[in-house]
């Protein structure tokens, strides 16, 4: 039972990361800076939490949860702005920019955490992990569905909203057009630059929350420099779930289960555990190969993924 609930908890960090990356990729940006952005999101959120907890005497649990989330979102979105400025405005190579952004993000997060002398994260973590008060009374059902902290519900809500916006609204249609064929979208009057900026900003902000949820929810507020690993897995999850945030809800739980399985299965050696950890990546590769072989149009990556768009070069 704890295995299932823990899988879901860690899965939600992947879900936030991959929903953010999906939005970004739908606009045609392969943002390899996501791991760095998640580090920044985590660090900024923790910083905001620490400032709040040490500056007020009466702590409102609601604000203790809300403020770090807002700060984390804004901090990560700013990283998205930097990425967009370089790739859209200065037309730099996306892969190179993304990788440099990851280096920057890891550096910034180390710097911020280094500045915080009196860490109140584990105290803060309680606000994030407390579930519905009546969950205990409902037995197994309550434990599986209602025992989580705010991030689990937030992540699922964001994934569902994203899925709806992408597939059912005009904004989503325009965004997908920008990612599939920016020249056509431009001709149809869609502001490619604006869509790419906004999608990257919002996507980065959401991904940053994934970093915060990893620290506050999964690690119970113990800071670890492993946030970037979550970021790379989130990028894998985007492919695994075929660029569909609603599928990613289940995909993320599978990834979460794979991620923690090695510590729940007894009777295997350390070496075999390492092979087990390889599993999410191998599965992602298989999915990637299968979708490219089957060539079903709705399962393909956005056609303009990774490609820059310059109106003058058509």
């Amino acid at each position: 039972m704890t295995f299932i609930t823990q899988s879901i908890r860690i899965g939600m960090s992947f879900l936030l990361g991959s929903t953010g990356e999906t939005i970004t990729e739908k606009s045609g940006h392969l943002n390899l800076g996501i791991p760095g952005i998640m580090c920044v999101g985590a660090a900024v959120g923790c910083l905001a939490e620490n400032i709040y907890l040490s500056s007020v005497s009466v702590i409102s649990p609601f604000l203790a949860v809300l403020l770090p989330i807002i700060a984390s979102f804004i901090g990560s979105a700013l990283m998205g702005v930097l990425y967009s400025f370089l790739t859209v405005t200065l037309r730099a190579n996306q892969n190179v920019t993304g990788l440099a952004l990851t280096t920057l993000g890891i550096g910034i997060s180390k710097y911020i955490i280094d500045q915080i002398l009196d860490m109140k994260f584990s105290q803060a973590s309680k606000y994030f992990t407390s579930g519905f008060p009546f969950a205990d009374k409902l037995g197994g059902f309550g434990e599986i569905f209602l025992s989580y902290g705010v991030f689990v519900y937030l992540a699922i809500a964001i994934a569902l909203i994203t899925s709806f916006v992408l597939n059912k609204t005009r904004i989503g249609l325009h965004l997908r057009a920008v990612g599939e064929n920016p020249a056509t979208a431009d001709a149809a009057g869609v502001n490619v630059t604006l869509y790419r900026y906004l999608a990257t900003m919002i996507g980065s902000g959401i991904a940053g929350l994934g970093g915060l949820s990893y620290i506050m929810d999964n690690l119970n507020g113990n800071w670890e420099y492993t946030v970037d690993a979550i970021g790379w897995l989130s990028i894998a999850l985007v492919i695994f779930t075929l660029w569909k945030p609603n599928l990613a809800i289940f995909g993320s739980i599978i990834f979460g289960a794979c991620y923690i399985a090695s510590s729940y299965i007894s009777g295997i050696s350390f070496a075999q555990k390492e092979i087990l950890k390889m599993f999410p990546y191998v599965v992602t590769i298989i999915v990637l190969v299968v979708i490219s072989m089957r060539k079903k149009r709705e399962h393909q990556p956005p056609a303009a993924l990774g490609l820059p768009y310059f109106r003058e070069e058509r």
Partner: protein
Amino acid sequence: MKTATHHREPLVHIVKRTDISTKKAVLIRAIAVIVSLLFSALLVFVLKGINPIQFFTALFEGAFGTSRRIWILLQKTAVLLCISLAVTPAFKMRFWNTGAEGQVLVGGLATCACMYYLGGALPLPLLYLLMIVSSIVAGIIWAVIPAIFKAKWNTNETLFTLMMNYVATFLVSFFINTWVTSGSGTLAPMSQYGLPRILNNWLLNIIIVAVLTVAVYIYLRFSKQGYEISVVGESENTARYIGINVKKVIIRTLIVSGALCGVAGLILVGGTNHTIATDTVGGQGFTAIMVSWLGKFNPLFMVLTSFLVIFLEVGANQISNAFKMNSSISDIITAVILFFIIGCEFFINYKIMFRKAAKEDK
């Protein structure tokens, strides 16, 4: 560009440059590097209160302070350059190989496996031969798998090679856990089976990479295969039209790429470290992508760019050691400088025209 009203010309507009002189291009890049260094010095001053003179002293101390530091600087440059050389043919073909990290790691793993299983059992020259062959083969296998799928089914290579990195990482950690039974989790160096030393641990690597640099330059610039790579990179359709077998070129180029990554693994593990860990490559597979791109895919320029990147890395490490900071500052400085260099390409490729200037042009 949104400043435009319908009947007036936009306030600024951007024109692609095709005719920029090499001198001017070099000048723009040099300015970018200098400005980025000044900016980093300012940043460190604001964040940590270290004055710029101390900053630059520490930066150069870290790189050139002692003869040992200079050797390490050159050795690190050689390894990074080797990986950059490896990714370059693929990039020229617009095959975004983000998997150099993993390809180097499996090359190193193969070398290490030879040293672990066969060290002592075989005469040294035979062992060296096996190390060389197995590391190259391992690198090739890791690179050619995504290449085959790219050639046959157009599978996205960026994502495929990226995932292969992690498979390699866990493969290494599997073997380390198999080999090391003490629970320390680290494999003790097997220096007695390392590649022969010339003068010190580092010179052999530097020589190997110097030879490879020239070889890759000649391969890309003067061979028929190098020409085919550029054509496929410029336009796959053109390549097909003039009778180049694109699939064959993709697979063949990635064999070259993987083999070079294998060599990088060989010199890292066989030449310097004599052991392996999951972080042996330490992100250099990704840094190499930037080095190659900044060097315009030209092996000779890449000597400079890889030197610059390593210089900054060791210099920034010295700064964080000297002023008792954690490694955050070196990461931040490296990234800031990379952003400046990445950004300055814009001013090399494009010209910004203001409204008035544009009218005079007509």
